[in-house]
């Protein structure tokens, strides 16, 4: 088969929603994500953010890397891959997971969908095939075999998030969608189009993710926009989502940690324990990669931890260094993600702090630089270590959700 060499003319792929997104994008602000071009901002970040918290939003998730992992050995395989007990994951459920290298350093996080008795889907931010294949060595033969296939391009995905999202789906005709519990998966038909809906998301709010054949992507977009019109649905870009995910306390690779497959400097790898994800690490389940290293770390004294910070003032502490004292003599960590939280009305951040400063209630000082028309000011702001998430409304868990 002759290969047409044209990829270089269009280095970034377009998702099946691209034409729809371009049509409503007011400021033409696109950014690359996993080899696709996706919208950063449609109108303004503020408008889009408030839609997440007060109405319904559509976010194009297609570039999320998806793997189909299936076969008689799939469960054992995944159990060895991730730190959580996959044996407990029932058919039709989703689990948030992380996976580590042998040293117990985080490679990536993602969600595992159990679609059938021996069929799973793994969704991740970054491509993982090399590690997934390395992890498959030894999973061969009867009863143990596992097939791993990337299906990113075969599945179009939309996140529908916000307090009115359930109502939008009901209005669209997804009978019984309100019975979906958090992390549950359902399948529905709309105009003969098959839709897989999971009650998952990256906003920490009520919301769903919709998975479909790319051939029907535009039709589904149109149907959702029409069904949500009275409930103020609007498409959003990554910037607004980023504010919501910080409020929800979710991590992003490259910002809050760097995958150990990418780090080149000593000491920049992070373990799930350091990232405050100890609740995802189950030492009592069958062996998983990194278990020995994590157990040793778990038994030792923690060196640092990712925590939430509540910072005085209203200036986001982007990239700020953190100190034990206001004078800035003892450096104790740094901010990984920061934002003004419009809903909490708090100046919040995620930060990596050294021991012993990461205990909830500790006070540290953030060194914030303010640009006042190119005149820079340095401000030391008091920051308090607080529990994550910053924002966790009841509605995110309520089943059935309120009918807004």
């Amino acid at each position, binding site marked *: 088969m002759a290969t047409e060499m044209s990829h270089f003319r269009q280095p970034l792929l377009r998702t099946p929603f691209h034409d729809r997104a371009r049509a409503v994008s007011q400021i033409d602000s696109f950014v690359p994500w996993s080899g696709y071009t996706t919208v950063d901002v449609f109108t303004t970040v503020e408008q889009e953010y408030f839609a997440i918290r007060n109405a319904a939003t559509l976010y194009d998730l297609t570039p999320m890397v998806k793997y189909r992992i299936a076969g008689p050995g799939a469960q054992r395989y995944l159990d060895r891959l991730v730190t959580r007990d996959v044996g407990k994951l029932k058919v039709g459920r989703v689990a948030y997971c992380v996976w580590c290298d*042998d040293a117990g350093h985080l490679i990536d996080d993602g969600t595992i969908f159990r679609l059938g008795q021996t069929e799973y889907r793994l969704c991740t931010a970054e491509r993982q095939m090399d590690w997934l294949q390395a992890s498959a060595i030894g999973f061969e033969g009867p009863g143990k075999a596992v097939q791993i296939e990337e299906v990113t391009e075969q599945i179009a995905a939309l996140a529908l998030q916000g307090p009115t999202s359930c109502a939008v789906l009901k209005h669209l005709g997804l009978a019984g969608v309100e019975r979906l519990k958090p992390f549950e998966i359902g399948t529905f038909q709309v105009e003969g189009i098959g839709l897989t809906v999971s009650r998952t998301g990256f906003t920490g709010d009520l919301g769903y993710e919709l998975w479909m054949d790319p051939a029907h992507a535009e039709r589904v977009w149109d149907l959702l926009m029409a069904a949500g019109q009275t409930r103020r649905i609007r498409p959003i870009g990554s910037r607004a989502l980023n504010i919501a995910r910080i409020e929800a306390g979710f991590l992003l690779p490259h910002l809050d940690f760097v995958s150990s497959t990418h780090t080149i400097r000593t000491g920049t790898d992070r373990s799930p324990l350091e990232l405050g994800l100890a609740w995802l690490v189950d030492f009592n389940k069958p062996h998983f*990669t*990194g278990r020995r290293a994590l157990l040793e770390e778990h038994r030792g004294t923690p060196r640092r931890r990712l925590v939430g910070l509540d910072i005085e003032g209203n200036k986001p502490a982007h990239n700020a260094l953190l100190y034990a004292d206001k004078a800035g003599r003892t450096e104790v960590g740094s901010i990984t993600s920061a934002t003004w939280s419009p809903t909490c009305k708090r100046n919040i951040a995620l930060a990596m702090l050294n021991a012993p400063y990461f205990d909830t209630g500790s006070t540290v000082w953030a060194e914030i630089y303010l640009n006042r028309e190119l005149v820079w000011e340095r401000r030391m702001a008091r920051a308090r270590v607080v529990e994550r998430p910053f924002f966790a409304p009841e509605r995110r868990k309520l089943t059935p959700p309120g009918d807004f």
Partner: protein
Amino acid sequence: MSTPAGASRYDCIVIGGGHNGLVCAAYLARGGRKVLVLEAASTVGGAAVTREFAPGFQVSAAAHLLHSMSASIIEDLQLSSHGLSMVASQMPTTALGDDGTALTIRAGRLESGAGAGCASADIEAYPGYAALMDRLADALHPVLGTVPPRLGTDRWVDRRTLMQLGWRIRRLGRHDMRELLRIGGMAVHDLLKDHFQTPLLQGALGFDAVLGTNFGPRSPGSVFTLLYRLAGAAGARSKGSGSDTLMQPRGGLGALTAALAKSAQAAGAGIRTGSPVQSIVVRDYRAAGVVLESGETISADAVISNADPQTTFLRLLGAEHLDAGFVRRVAHLRNRGLAAKLHLALSDLPKFTGVKPEALAGRVLITPTLEYLERAFNHSKYGEYSSAPALEITVPTVNDPTLAPAGRHVLSAVVQYAPYGLAAGWDSGRQSLTALVLQMLERYAPGIGATVTASQLLAPPDIEREFRITGGHWHHAELALDQFFLVRPVPGAAQYAAPLEGLYLCGAGCHPGGGVMGAAGRNAARQVLERAA
């Protein structure tokens, strides 16, 4: 050879009764442990066994000479009193030229054979070269008996080991230290061209660098493999013996492992033959025993595997009990054998042209030049056996007539290169390679073909199947700088302890590797004794 199982709980189970497994078991038993050795075959010995290959004809089936068996292990384990004796030691090496010339190396000296052989400058230069290589080998030899240190730890034993290694090399003095650093990564071809002019001598000395490896003489790193062999030989030297450490045990190599088994049993170890292990039992994230193919479960606090790393980790244990990165390293081990073994039953003693009959009391090499050897290697890169292979020949019946019926002889030869993955397949390859070698032998020993009454060729896949060595490599894993010492077999298992509590390796796949040396088995036993203490 079988000890009743008795109670089915042991301190240590050793999987595999090869020489390293037996050495390990003997040291563990002497260290007060209750040990059981489980051997799949009907006799112990692994690849160091004497077997009948034709009615009445016995041969050392894989390894056929001792050159680096640790003298201190022979002494520690009192192998002489357990039946080990040598019918020949300090055996000479005779190299045959393709023009009827020959030369012999005996007791550290070069003897030019009949009809030219060696340049006189080479005869003068040889002792100096041999002395240099021996000094370097002596400096490196203690490394073989050392448990490799871990890098980047605060443990004082690791630091001490590294400092001792550095000190040993420093103590060589400026000249030798520089020479070691200069030649350490070189190709043996270049080293030998520096020292000698005679192609036959170069070929003979280069052969030991590539014997049993995936190297040709022009491969960088082949000086390292030569130094490794010489360092092993340094440990085999008994007091006063020269640098020729080739030895032939009475009764073949099987006699060595039989003596090891007796020594281990005398120290209290149990040995069960015909007991192949199906899998290693993991309980509570640690090795807790084994399940035999018969279905029987035997519990132990520690499981020590003499099997190769891939067999141990991927087949007996299973990848799901190990980290993925570690498993990937194990799966990527270079462990494809490149040497075949040819056994011939002969009705008469062969007569090699230009060689006195007593040369057959030693070993005979057919590797006339380095170019010949490199050409032989070339084929292997493309999945072919050499069209003109290099041979290491012994006629063990010269020293030990009991191996064959009266007046008959056995010829045992290592044939290089014979790649594991022969493109044409070994089903037809066995016969055609045998015919090729016989044709070759006929040129060097006219009339030999008519005396052949039976033959057997063990290609690497045969070695894999018969001795249960994945890849059929006699070192279990290629011996090269990237699979040596700190990183042998792979990082994470280089200190004999596997990354699973209670599981250890003791075979040739660990430091310091194969060849019948026993050091891996002893080093492993030390680790087990130290850890459990």
